[in-house]
């Protein structure tokens, strides 16, 4: 993975402030977050094969450094929005793993009350705006979050994630044009895992790297190695600083790889076992573990203890989800309309269409 070429930044000024050095405990926390996602997803995989999770279930294994690294440079009140491979982002934002797993199980205790499922996690309190199922559809929404942040003078920023497949959707380009035109504090993050479902990037996308798409809008662009969390953090910090201090958008392309199928329903015939095995050699968690040990930040025993802790957390989430009640049938009719407080409430008898 070559370092990003500063030339692709289209002449935008480099934000001046520097990424602060992490304290040992902060580094250990990044490791812990990545490993929690890994163990959570393994548990979800198990629950899916047990048919406790239904529908589609898109796992994040292999991509952990992207969500953890990018969100680690945000403030708590910045906004995050992503597509349907959303478990990792919610966990990093701080959504309770129990509520995440319960959502996968379709339980009332889930982070969307069992109405969203794997693809539609939401957590308003933690500024997590979903979890969106239509490829690229969340990118105009994320642009709107940034629009509102600027309109209201919040000095907050938005990270809007998409997969490499989304970059060929028209709405994504419409949104990027608007963000550049109106100088919105948004960072677009392409998690390029090389496959849009079963179609490799070579078969789907003209132009390499994907950051070139930003050039048409005179938008800053930057690439990062998604297997190296330190690189992800450094590059995201630049983009976030540009958004926060100059209200300018950036298109980031973070090169990563997913270990499992597009979803649990994917047999994966479009790529070889050798390819996956080879890519697992640059595993983001192993890489970071080695680095922390080399830096003598932590001992192997301590890291193993963390593994035990997050594995227990994932198991507890599984147990919580499994034991949680199904939603009552009456909840079908809940959550459709927000209560009205400025006009007369629509009569409930009118709301039930027969």
């Amino acid at each position, binding site marked *: 993975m070559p370092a990003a070429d500063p030339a692709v930044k289209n002449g935008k000024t480099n934000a001046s402030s520097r990424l602060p050095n992490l304290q040992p405990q902060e580094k250990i926390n990044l490791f812990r977050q990545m490993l929690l996602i890994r163990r959570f997803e393994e548990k979800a995989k198990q629950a899916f094969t047990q048919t406790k999770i239904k529908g589609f279930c898109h796992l994040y294994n292999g991509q952990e450094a992207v969500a953890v690294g990018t969100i680690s440079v945000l403030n708590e009140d910045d*906004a995050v*929005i992503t597509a349907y491979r959303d478990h990792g982002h919610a966990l990093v934002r701080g959504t309770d793993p129990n509520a995440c797993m319960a959502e996968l199980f379709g339980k009332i205790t*889930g*982070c*969307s*009350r*069992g*109405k*969203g499922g794997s693809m*539609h996690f*939401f*957590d*308003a309190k933690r500024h997590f*705006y*979903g*979890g*969106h*199922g*239509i490829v690229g*559809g969340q*990118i*105009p*929404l*994320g*642009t*709107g*979050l*940034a*629009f*509102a*942040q600027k*309109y*209201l003078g919040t000095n907050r920023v938005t990270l809007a994630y998409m997969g490499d497949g989304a970059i060929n959707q*028209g*709405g994504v*380009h*419409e*949104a990027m*044009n*608007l963000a550049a*035109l109106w100088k919105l504090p948004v960072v677009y993050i392409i998690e390029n895992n090389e496959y849009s479902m079963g179609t490799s990037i070579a078969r789907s996308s003209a132009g390499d790297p994907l950051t070139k798409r930003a050039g048409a809008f005179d938008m800053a662009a930057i690439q990062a190695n998604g297997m190296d969390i330190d690189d992800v953090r450094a590059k995201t910090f630049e983009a976030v600083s540009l958004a926060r201090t100059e209200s300018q958008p950036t298109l980031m392309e973070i090169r990563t790889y997913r270990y499992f199928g597009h979803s649990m329903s994917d047999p994966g015939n479009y790529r070889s076992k050798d390819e996956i095995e080879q890519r697992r050699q640059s595993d983001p968690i192993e890489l970071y573990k080695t680095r922390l040990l080399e830096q003598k930040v932590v001992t192997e025993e301590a890291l193993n203890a963390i593994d035990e802790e997050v594995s227990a957390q994932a198991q507890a989430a599984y147990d919580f989800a499994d034991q949680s009640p199904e939603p009552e049938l009456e909840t079908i009719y*809940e*959550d*459709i*309309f*927000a*209560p*009205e*407080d*400025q*006009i*007369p409430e*629509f*009569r409930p*008898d*009118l*709301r039930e*269409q*027969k």
Partner: protein
Amino acid sequence: MPTLTYREALNEALSEEMERDDRVMLMGEEVAEYDGAYKVSKGLLKKFGPKRIIDTPISEAGFTGLAIGAAMYGLRPVVEFMTWSFSLVAYDQIINNAAQIRYMSGGQFSIPIVFRGSSGGGLQVGATHSHTPENWYANVPGLTVITPSFPDDAKGLLKAAIRSNNPVCFLENEKLYGYKDEVPEGDVLVEIGKAKVRREGSDITIVSNSGSTHRALNAAKQLEAEGISCEVIDLRTIKPLDFATIAESVAKTNRVLIVEENKPFAGWGAQVAYQVQRELFDDLDAPVHRVTSIDVPQPYNGRLEQAVLPNEERVIAAVKEVLA
């Protein structure tokens, strides 16, 4: 009471609501410097400035999605489609995001947004520009669908729509922008989900909306000369549907004609007809009848288009058929 055009009434509603609440803003193609393709936003840029009256590029999916995201964050955007025919480019954003995010998030986010613009046929602009899509949107749970027919409702319902905490599709009628009528002064809201009897009568109930309300009223006037008394209900809101007002009228007239500009298959009138037969069967002295647009794409030629649209001749003939 002052007399305003439908266009001016809408303009007043926007202006008053923007004055009342800083979070209300208007975006769309040509809404600012051009003063609106149909001049509904005339003068608003001057009054509220470019931060709140925003010209967009021709990117319906992009700016519609952006406005929905802004609504998730607490703004109360009004999105103008130059015509509702162009909303099709933004259909995914309206259906999958505006209508469904609240439900999918278990009630965590509300989407206080108004989508508005012109709709309907009769201006010889061909099939791509003449859609009457209130039934398409009314089919989607989570959306409120409003189609005002008169200036007073245009103003009062738009003000209510902007104050709603939920997504509203507000379909204006291109042929009515110049229609003049009395509009109450000041901060008068019209209740969403409430139909209005625009003409009282005793022989038949005509249920209509938007431009078709005017067709029904004109037909009723002509039928009066022949001794036929028509009650004309203007639905105003398509969804939620005010069935109670229909039922009250049918109890008196025992006959129903529906007049709508939707194409016949699954137009909103099909839903009304179903509910009438299901709930008011014993009140009926004749089968429910419908006058709709003809089930063809909209032709450009004026003579052909007038034949495709529901027109007064067809309404009069249908009334006589029901009464026969």
